[in-house]
């Protein structure tokens, strides 16, 4: 018996631990193949935004009287927290939606992974790790461009990375729970893009303070992860006045999404993979 165990190629303990990291390793390994487009997208997107928003709208706003509405910062500094948070959200979305559909529906890769010592829960965690990694990568690229344009001071880098990743985590978690429930595509991604992501981007106080909106439209912002992250980012990066309790609400809102999303993700992954 002892001899038999010694002969075994697989070490049980090694195989069972760190399954999530192995799922992530696999995805990163595959990602190298389209690293070029990941980088091009990561750099191209912020450059386009900065040129159009910064040089266009920014010039217009800054030429007027920004102090009143924006609290005395440049327009780019005002929109930077929102742009970064939405970049993080976009980054994580790409990694929770498509790979999950591929895993369960298209190529059914999750079933192959689950045939190894990796558990359903570890697969979900692995997807999440990759999503956060991709989100972080996108944010870092964005920050680099912002710094290069002189749009934000160095001191605001860490607070902005923190708030945008918080938004990314909350959103990734919720979207993973939803995508795990899809039995087929049926235009779901188009619907999410048009009716969730686009309105969220437009109604979350991204380009102007949410308070300028009529009160009946403001609730769209209140339930949007983007708004919470943006407000927090503005407070932390350039000292936009924010009451402490409201800051706590912003953090809690995003953290609750992050925790609840995974709570609903695990059982669905387990159920689907054990059918």
């Amino acid at each position, binding site marked *: 018996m002892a001899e038999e165990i010694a002969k*075994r190629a697989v070490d049980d303990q090694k195989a069972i631990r760190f399954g999530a990291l192995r799922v992530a390793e696999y995805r990163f390994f595959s990602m190298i193949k389209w690293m070029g487009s990941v980088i091009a997208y990561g750099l191209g997107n912020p450059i386009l935004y900065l040129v159009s928003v910064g040089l266009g709208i920014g010039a217009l706003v800054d030429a007027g009287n920004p102090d009143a509405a924006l609290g005395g910062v440049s327009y780019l500094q005002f929109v930077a927290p929102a742009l970064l948070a939405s970049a993080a959200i976009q980054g994580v979305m790409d990694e929770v939606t498509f790979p999950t559909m591929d895993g369960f529906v298209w*190529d059914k890769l999750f079933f192959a992974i689950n045939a190894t010592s990796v558990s359903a829960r570890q697969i979900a965690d692995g997807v999440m790790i990759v999503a956060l990694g991709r989100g972080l990568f996108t944010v870092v690229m964005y920050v680099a461009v912002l710094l290069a344009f002189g749009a934000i001071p160095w001191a605001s880098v860490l607070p902005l990375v923190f708030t945008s990743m918080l938004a990314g985590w909350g959103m990734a978690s919720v979207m993973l729970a939803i995508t795990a429930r899809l039995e087929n595509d049926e235009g779901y991604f188009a619907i999410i893009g048009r009716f969730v992501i686009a309105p969220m981007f437009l109604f979350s106080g991204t380009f102007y303070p949410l308070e300028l909106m009529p009160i009946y439209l403001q609730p769209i912002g209140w339930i949007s992860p983007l708004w919470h992250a943006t407000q927090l980012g503005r407070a932390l990066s350039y000292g936009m006045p924010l009451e402490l309790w409201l800051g706590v609400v912003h953090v809690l809102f995003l953290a609750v999404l992050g925790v609840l999303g995974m709570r609903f993700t695990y059982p669905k992954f387990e159920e689907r993979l054990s059918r």
Partner: protein
Amino acid sequence: MVRTKASNREVVISAKNLRKQYKDFVAVDGIDFEVYRGEAFGLLGPNGAGKSTTMKMISSVSQRSSGDLAILGKEPNTQGPEIRAHLGVVPQKDMLDRELTAWENLFTYGRYFGLSRAWLKNKIEELLDFAQLQEKRKEKVEGLSGGMQRRLAIARGLINEPEIVLLDEPTTGLDPQARHILWDRLFRLKEEGVTLVITTHYMDEAEQLCDRLVVMDKGKIMAEGSPAELIKKYSSKEVVELRFGTDKNEEAAKALKGFGDRLEVLPDRILIYSKNGEELLAKVIDKGLHPITSLVRRSSLEDVFLRLTGRSLVE
């Protein structure tokens, strides 16, 4: 590990009253079987017999509804990952990563088991040789033929040097030549002493590869034994197949009553079971019956299945 007293062979899979129910549908309805180390064990039955469901329970991903199941002496409901660390699973749909090359598919899969990169590099060479895919190592999965993809899926299933290899319908969808290549590879595994569990609805595959098998139908086990034992028990040595034309088979069957040990009338042909087929065919012709075509062959598992269920395996 568990050893049965009678054979003193090590039991690697043991199922007792195993049952799986999906809502109102009972896919596996209380089956018992044991698989011994080093044997090739088959689950033979038509589509929908419950073979794949049984396979999913053995692969420790799908939980049983009731009954007992032990794999390598462990409980799959609670020790799934520990068990799966020593299983090799070759699913019916290959589930290979199309974006990756043959080599990369093996490498990334091996990493799931926590195997080191250096160890894997050697192992992959060995497996590419075994699967006859050395020349295709840098080819993406999309560029491989169906038979090559299946061989790659088998190689992937062997990456962790599993104690039991589970093959779900290994040659379904392959052309005859690819099937023979695959059988040859599986036979080699068998010779190396790897425990194989194979589901199939092809009787020739079961006869070629399985030391022992269970015949399944509608979620139940109808019979168990080696192919030869089953044929001996449920069929005669030889079979005479007669075709009189679709409308005339029934009528001819009446005239053939009493011929051979047993008679089966199928929509397209009549089967007569007998120890000596040629002798029986001569008697039929002596009686003045003239079938359009006639064939004398040895009994197969197909005949066993027909006897047990009254239906053909492939319908």
